[in-house]
């Protein structure tokens, strides 16, 4: 069974801090994604990666960056956290065409 693990379930950070959200998958998936989930707005794609060291902007990349140094790990970085980045962040991976997305449990980030 595919496992996507997000390192933190809850995170509280201060405005201006640099924040790292980590995601690891154990199925050798090439494709990994970061979404944020907000009530009334659904899921919005922040960044995705189809290969190591490769990244593509999603729909709302502003204020975020990512890192994919190893195939199994995809990190989301908030360079300078702001209160409007308080949200639930979901990591996902997929094996490719026709494969379903497998999501992590999510990280609820609060920026104060």
């Amino acid at each position, binding site marked *: 069974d595919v496992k*996507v693990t997000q390192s933190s379930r809850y995170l509280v950070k201060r405005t201006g801090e640099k924040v790292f959200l980590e995601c690891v998958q154990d199925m050798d998936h090439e*494709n990994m*994604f970061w979404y944020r989930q907000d009530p*009334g*707005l*659904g*899921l*919005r*794609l922040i960044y*995705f990666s*189809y290969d190591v060291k490769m990244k593509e902007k999603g729909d709302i990349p502003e204020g975020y960056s990512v890192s994919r140094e190893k195939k199994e790990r995809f990190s989301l970085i908030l360079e300078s956290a702001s209160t409007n980045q308080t949200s639930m962040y*979901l990591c*996902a991976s*997929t094996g*490719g*065409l*026709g*494969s*379903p*997305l*497998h*999501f*992590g*449990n*999510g990280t609820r980030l609060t920026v104060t």
Partner: protein
Amino acid sequence: AQRVTQPEKLLSVFKGAPVELKCNYSYSGSPELFWYVQYSRQRLQLLLRHISRESIKGFTADLNKGETSFHLKKPFAQEEDSAMYYCALTPRGGSQGNLIFGKGTKLSVKP
């Protein structure tokens, strides 16, 4: 423009009643449609996809290209069906990473 619309933010039904979660889409080509579900304190997961034409947990969804709809239906709702449901589409043959999600419908099944 590609868009998925779920008109109901919240749908509340009684146990045993039929339930229909609406999903309409806007896409110029031939998409693949999906329903994802998130139960309380669980991760988001795939419920069903239209190309499979299968019933999962009693739910079915038929793609209506004429009406550009992909409504999720269950004849007799159960309390354990209470969850957040997202409709999503991707270009046919495309990676599910290009999924376009609706804003979600929260289903509440009352005893």
